[in-house]
């Protein structure tokens, strides 16, 4: 029941819109089935599955809007929900930034759905957990992991003729392996839509190797080092920077993209010329929803997070050869500035080269391999300065080889500075819903040591 076809969903959306007496009405119908299994200390601790199908109706009178939601779908319930949304709208305060709803849009057909993921059942999850726990038990290592699979659809429609439908699946699997003495720890967190690309045993073996290799780490002095960042390490820093590319914040003078004296830094070269970021919902390795991603300032949540403003996602270049090419513009801010609205992407692609992680290590005289960062928090939004720590395997490299594990460091660094200190970029791989190259960065700032394993 939770996963409706396009036709089934459209029938409900059309019915709801037919009940409308408001100036404008939009409908968001979302369904998903989520299952999970969690384990720790080599034993399954919890598992569960849930279905959810819900409908949100937003009614608008002038600049007043109201939303009501329901999870019953008989005619009487649908009409009641429409009336309730209309009542809430009439009593709501005016939103001076309200933008009239969009008319019909053309959406791309992206490949976000995988049948093999949609078929996951409790036995599959138990087997996935067993495949992860068993090799650890045999090597006297301790596994703690989590797998969550989601199959869902999002359908949006409005009284001006806009209609969109998309099905998607996703699997999130993460595994931490620790040595029995607690002196080594390794982690792996692959990112796929299609579960046939996930092998929990092979993934666990990567974490096992890191756990064993990271035991009995030595302390190095904090300071500036050349680092090789695995994509699992750099993803959050890059994501944080990319999420800060809102044009309104920059125009208002409160962003790293604000220009001295007013305006934005659109068109300025801020990074090394090898730095290029794009987004492309049609990318075969990273398929993304054709609508949604929303954001871009003042997003009025009209489709309850399922569709953003309903603006179509398309291929866009954000940073090209180090130059800022695009920023997010909400419909309100775009209208005010007389430009085209641009939604934030659902995920980004940082272009790289052809080298593997091993190649990057081989070409390094002295450096540090960082496999993961943890607890990253903003220190100064003005400079995009973040702090955080290395975790689950940090290694010293000398003469092109990993020499020994080192104790974890705290860093204070800005991705903007980091992307000016690029030494080399490898071949991009998926990490956290993006495509990111392993990268070699000089003068990365570590500010203190941590005893944590």
């Amino acid at each position, binding site marked *: 029941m939770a996963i409706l076809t396009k036709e089934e969903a459209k029938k409900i959306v059309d019915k709801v819109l037919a009940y409308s007496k408001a100036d404008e009405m939009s409908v968001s119908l979302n369904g998903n089935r989520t299952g999970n299994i969690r384990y720790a200390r080599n*034993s*399954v601790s919890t598992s569960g599955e849930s279905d959810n199908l819900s409908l949100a109706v937003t009614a608008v009178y002038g600049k007043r809007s109201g939303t009501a939601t329901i999870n019953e779908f008989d005619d009487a319930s649908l009409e009641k929900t429409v009336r309730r949304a209309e009542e809430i709208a009439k009593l709501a305060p005016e939103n001076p930034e309200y933008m009239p709803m969009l008319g019909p849009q053309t959406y791309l057909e992206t490949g976000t759905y995988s049948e093999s993921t949609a078929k996951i059942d409790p036995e599959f999850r138990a087997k996935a957990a067993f495949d992860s726990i068993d090799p650890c038990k045999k090597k006297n290592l301790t596994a703690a992991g989590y797998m969550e699979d989601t199959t869902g659809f999002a359908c949006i429609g409005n009284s001006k003729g806009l209609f969109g439908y998309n099905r998607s699946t996703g699997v999130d699997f993460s595994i931490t392996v620790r040595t029995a003495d607690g002196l080594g720890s390794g982690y792996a967190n692959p990112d796929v839509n299609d579960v046939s690309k996930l092998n929990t045993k092979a993934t666990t073996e990567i974490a096992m190797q890191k756990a064993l290799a990271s035991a009995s780490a030595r302390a190095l002095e904090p300071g500036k080092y050349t680092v090789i960042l695995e994509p699992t390490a750099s993803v959050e820093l890059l994501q944080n920077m990319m999420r*800060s590319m809102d044009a309104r914040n920059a125009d208002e003078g409160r962003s790293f993209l604000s220009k001295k004296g007013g305006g934005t830094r659109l068109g300025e070269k801020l990074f090394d010329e090898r730095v290029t970021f794009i987004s492309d919902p049609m990318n075969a390795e990273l398929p993304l929803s054709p609508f949604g991603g929303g954001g*871009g300032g003042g997003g009025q949540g009209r489709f309850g997070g399922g569709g953003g403003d309903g603006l179509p996602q398309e291929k866009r270049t954000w940073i090209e050869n180090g130059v800022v090419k695009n920023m997010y513009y909400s419909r309100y801010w775009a209208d005010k500035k007389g430009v085209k609205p641009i939604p*934030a992407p659902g995920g980004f692609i940082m272009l790289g080269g052809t080298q593997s992680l091993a190649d990057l290590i081989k070409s390094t005289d002295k450096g540090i391999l960082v496999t993961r960062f943890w607890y990253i928090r903003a220190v100064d939004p003005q400079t995009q300065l973040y702090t955080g720590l290395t975790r689950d395997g940090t290694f010293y490299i000398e003469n092109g080889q990993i020499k020994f594990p080192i104790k974890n460091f705290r860093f204070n660094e800005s991705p903007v500075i980091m992307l000016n200190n690029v030494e080399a970029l490898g071949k991009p791989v998926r990490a956290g819903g993006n495509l990111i190259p392993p990268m070699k960065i000089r003068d990365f700032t570590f500010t203190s040591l941590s005893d944590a394993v």
Partner: protein
Amino acid sequence: MNRRDFNQLLSMGAAGIMIPSLPAFSRSVSPEALLEPGLDVAVKKRLADAALNAAKSMGATYADVRIGRYLNQFVLTRENKVQGIINSESFGVGIRVIVNGCWGFASVGDARNESVVAQAAKTAVSIAKANARLLTEPVQLAPQKGYGEVSWKAPIKRNAFEVPVKEKVDLLLSCNAAAMQNGANFVNNVLFQVNEQKYFASTDGTYADQDIHRIGPSFTVTAVDPQNGKFSTRNSLSSPMGMGYDYLQVNPSDKQTGVTTRYNKGYDMLEDITLAAKQAKEKLSAKSVEAGKYDLVLDPSHLWLTIHESVGHPLELDRVLGYEANYAGTSFATLDKWESKNFNYGSKEVNLVADKTQQYSLGAVGWDDEGVKTKKWDLVKDGILVNYQAIRDQVHIIGEKESQGCCYADNWSSVQFQRMANVSLEAGKTPLSVENMIKDVKKGIYIIGDGSFSIDQQRYNFQFGGQLFYEIKDGQIVGMLKDVAYQANTREFWNSCVAVCDQSDYRLGGAFNDGKGQPSQSSAVSHGSATARFNGVNVINTARKI
């Protein structure tokens, strides 16, 4: 929404998520619907008994039922605009059972009759039976006496949901106007209110009906210097509280005056936002800190977060045992340190307590989510680690006979597990005011309000920022500083505590959305302290050029 997303929501950073999506399994309703009574307590008991009887008849040796109605309201504004008002309601039943020594859990939304609830109990039993096949350690549940039919209500004077939305909007917009008049360029101001109506029943014979209220006003004021391309912010010095709208009643006796006003059980938003606008501007031209060692004087509006991260989390027994290894992490405070009875967590001045009964705190309830009457207990006594936070299926590990009563689920649809109690630093026993504490400091920094925070997965190494930093020289506050963050090791930091002000300075801070577990659950928790002094802490300068 986890704590981090929530913090992001309240900051100006990502404007795209200024309007939060609805909490899971909840529906958007009218403000009036938030005042409708939930199910009658007799009906709840009937539903609960149906579930308990169904579970027992299918072989459960223990079962508990939580019937929950969760009401939330967000009022979101910026400058002179209302960005949104979100009212949501979530109602359902969660049932947990032990069969063959193994836990099973199932939940069902909008459950209003006995057969639906009994069916969910059956599902919970079947999950327990399936998981029992993979079981390695059977559940050892600490015995718990039944309390019969009992109830608990948060000590609120004015239910926030009874206050008309217009009154709230008027307050927020008038405060925003005051900020703009006093030099702010932008202001985001949010009011969040919660009512959890929870009914708990178990096969031990407890039927607890509880009514929990929380409120959290929160703003960020921004000042921009376009000529130099710089901006600075100052967040509110309010705290989320286990109170009703009475928290927003101005009361002079709840104010601590000094370099800026700080608040106890009554928050003067207008005064704070006016000061914030001036201080955000002042920050733009404040002196950039010189890195080095300083004696830190930390206000409770700042210290709560350091307590939360460096004491609350490492002393959660499930983290110590490794159950959170893949997500939140483990802990440096291992069992051998506790067993030694001489592990100096802090100096002799440091007394840290866990307390689920503390009045006006976010974590206060009468009974926890597995029917244990709440209490207060020592974690660190005269500097020595003496205990952890543990629940019924864990306390045997630390030799306790009964649970400490800190089990919590964030929704009827979530399974309950060990969560942080209110963990607080006890006030000093010797009379000591903030002024007298500062008088003795030769080279120091006085920090007010919480800012950036980060700590490693075993809770050794941390870094904290703040909202306001004042330089102390030879016992005097000499001016404002900026670009300040301090880094320390948990044990060294708490051992550098040389003084804690007395009870008259004691105040609560806290967070609505402490995240833990997979799938992640959020929990609201308070942390109290009086202003405290820490000697020789490493301060870094966070200014960068891009």
